[in-house]
């Protein structure tokens, strides 16, 4: 069953010297439980596509349907609710809040729910243990290594059990060994049924995914399948 369907999505923006086309008519379907990689060189439009799929960047034309919801027909505030309920984000450079501890960063998506602080803390603690940071809950981001910060970012993205997880260059700021550990973590999550869409230009990561979609100059170039989806 397709959880995401992208129909003729284009994105143009004013680049100062006229209109720039970031995406020129993209069609894509993503099945529930799939681990999909969006691959391409810098400026190919892969991060723009990720942000459009992530309900934070309206396309110029086209539709994005997630779980039968046309997300850009929702108001901006309803789309925020949708992101809170459906999507988890692992941003480039981790993007942790520097003045919050690891566990507080993970609790962040729960701060706008009706859950009590105790419940939030229990949920965050459980997820941090899952990513192997149960003993570093009270550390600030600057007291953690790059790999540990990435794990906190992943924990924050999955703490409220979103159906879809987006990751933008998750290994971009990590050394090879740590990058592999993080990819192992994504693979484990995917095996548990998590749908993951990851942007990368690191070819070594592709073996962890089920399918890779190659993008060049705003257009889907080709698709490669590596393994069947887990569920």
């Amino acid at each position, binding site marked *: 069953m397709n959880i995401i369907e992208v129909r003729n999505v284009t994105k143009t*923006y004013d680049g100062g010297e006229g209109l720039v086309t*970031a995406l020129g008519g993209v069609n894509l379907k993503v099945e529930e439980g799939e681990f999909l990689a969006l691959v391409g060189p810098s400026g190919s439009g892969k*991060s*723009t596509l*990720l*942000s459009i799929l*992530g309900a*934070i*960047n309206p396309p110029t034309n086209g539709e994005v349907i997630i779980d039968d919801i046309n997300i850009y027909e929702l108001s*901006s*505030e309803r789309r*925020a*609710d*949708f*992101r*809170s*309920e459906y*999507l*988890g*984000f692992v*941003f480039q450079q981790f*993007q942790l*809040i*520097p*003045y*919050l501890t690891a566990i*507080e960063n993970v*609790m*962040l*998506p*729960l*701060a*706008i729910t009706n859950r009590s*602080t105790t419940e*939030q803390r229990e949920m965050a603690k459980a997820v941090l243990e899952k990513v192997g940071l149960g003993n570093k809950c009270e550390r600030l981001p600057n007291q953690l290594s790059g790999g540990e910060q990435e794990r906190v970012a992943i924990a*924050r993205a999955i703490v409220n059990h979103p159906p879809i997880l987006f990751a933008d260059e998750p290994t971009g700021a990590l050394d090879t060994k740590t990058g592999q550990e993080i990819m192992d973590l994504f693979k484990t999550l995917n095996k548990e049924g998590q749908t993951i869409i990851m942007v990368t230009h690191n070819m070594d990561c592709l073996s962890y995914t089920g399918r890779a979609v190659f993008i060049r100059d705003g257009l889907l170039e080709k698709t490669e399948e590596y393994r069947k989806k887990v569920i």
Partner: protein
Amino acid sequence: MKLKDIALNNLRRRKIKMFFLVFGMVFGVATIVTLSAITATMQKEMQGNILEVGTRLIITPKTEERNYSYNGIAIPGSDVNFDVTEFNDGVVAKIQDSDGINVVAPKVLGAAKVQSSKRSRDVAVIVGVDFEKELQIKNYWRLVGDKPATEDQVLIGSNIGMEFKVEPGKKLTINGRDFVISGVIESTASDEDGLVFMNLATAQELLKKPDALSFLEVAAFKNLRATDEQVKAVVQQVSVKVPEARVTSVKDKVEARKELVDRFANFSLVVSVIVLIIGSLIVMTTMMSSVNERTREIGIFRAIGFRKKHIIKIILMEAGVVSVISGIVGFIVGMGVATLTAPMVVGNLKGSVAWNPLLAVGVLVLSTLVGLLASWYPAVKASRLDPAEALRFI
């Protein structure tokens, strides 16, 4: 975790910036509190003076007086008094019979040599009074000790008590005659603090002014809040009955000072409004700069599902906490400064600066409102940040 935790954590992270913001706001709030407290103290003192004085009249013998000056500069020693006169006892009855007169307190004034066991002064002013009437008029006097019961007892002003190191029950020798101090008048922050009050007849005898009265103090109307018209009518009536007297309403002098106090109040108001405007601009600039610094952070909040109202709440909570702290500290600092500076500004301050809980509440509400209103625009601007742009997806 709640939104308030995010706001408080951010304030903790930006300690120095927030310290300067709080400092600026405390300065503004304290300025407003100081001016308000001093103005209120001046007005209270003024009101107190008006009530104490009530509709008091001072009746003095008319004395033809000339002094010479050149280009506004008084020539020393040029004061010349013609026909220096004093009243006699008969005038009291004449005035007492007038309509509206409540109490007539006659006085004789003179200089005398005063000695105690520890100090001596060749010239001190003594005042002979009818104590029963005097105490009716001076109902604001607070005595340490008792009022004089015999001719050999005196009341002294607080400065005399300190200068001669005497207290009730001690002896004071005036022009060679021994008196017992029955009581000391607590400071009235006026000339009275430096006077010695004794029985009228005894003073007349001591000063060798038999039956003479230097001036009369009159309380017109029992109701101390008589209208200006009523007072003017009494002044006119007495002037006609006793043509040799000059009648002055003490209230007139007090009211002239009241006008100065009112001007100070207006000045304080203008300064407070200017401080408020400057304070608002400081808050707005600081919050705008804070929002600009946190573009990516706000982008993350929005991307993970925070609504606009959540962002506005976080920013306003930060502003609210800063404003409340500034309001409380500003009030305390302002009252402290007012307490220290009031004696200099008010002069002859009788009471102390009152800690008015209404002013505290008002200042707290005002500083919070200013903080929130000035932060509203930065908060709305933050909430409208495009998460895609903030996270550089575009």
